């Protein structure tokens, strides 16, 4: 069955360092992969999307890589700040004939320590 795995344990990191979050998937051929941020009691907020033919995408302090051979995406936040503390969700969309059913991982909680 399809599975999307993210580190279930919280990631604690010192302010100013680079946070790296991992998303692994099995039995899946995604057309693209998305990363969302979710704060407690709120809906997810879309951050970045990377397509299966792209290796890397950047947006300000965020960087996403996508390795379809390893079936893995890495999400980096450089110069992390306490305001970056949140849960980060990886989401995949399959080849779906023009429309998208987005499947989410369980998320990794990031805590940036001042």
């Amino acid at each position, binding site marked *: 069955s399809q599975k999307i795995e993210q580190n279930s344990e919280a990631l604690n990191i010192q302010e100013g360092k680079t946070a790296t979050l991992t998303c692994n998937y099995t039995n899946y051929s995604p057309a693209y992969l998305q990363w969302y941020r979710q704060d407690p009691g*709120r809906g997810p907020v879309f951050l970045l999307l990377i397509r299966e033919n792209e290796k890397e995408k950047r947006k300000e302090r965020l960087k996403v890589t996508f390795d379809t051979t390893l079936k893995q995406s890495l999400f980096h936040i450089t110069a992390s700040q306490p305001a970056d503390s949140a849960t980060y969700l990886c989401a995949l969309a399959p080849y779906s004939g023009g*429309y998208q059913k987005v499947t989410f991982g369980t998320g990794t909680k990031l805590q940036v320590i001042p």
Partner: protein
Amino acid sequence: DAGVTQSPTHLIKTRGQQVTLRCSPKSGHDTVSWYQQALGQGPQFIFQYYEEEERQRGNFPDRFSGHQFPNYSSELNVNALLLGDSALYLCASSFDGADGAGYTFGSGTRLTVV
């Protein structure tokens, strides 16, 4: 420009009752997807509506049903509520022609079944 609006924000129901949750998509969006998020888990896909039709459905029983109106707003109905239906219900909107643009989520409806 209003984003996705969900109502109510919180709801307490008794086992066996029925509930209706409402969603107004972001302006310009024509597709609505519903997700269920249990505490500490990632969002689970319930179904997606486009052109007033259910286009895709996740692994949820028939007790979960929905509707989309001509103005693109949507309702999620859950019949015969179980304790296990307690969760955050998220509505996400998107534009069908914007391949891979990411979802815009509402803040969700917190449903508690007692």
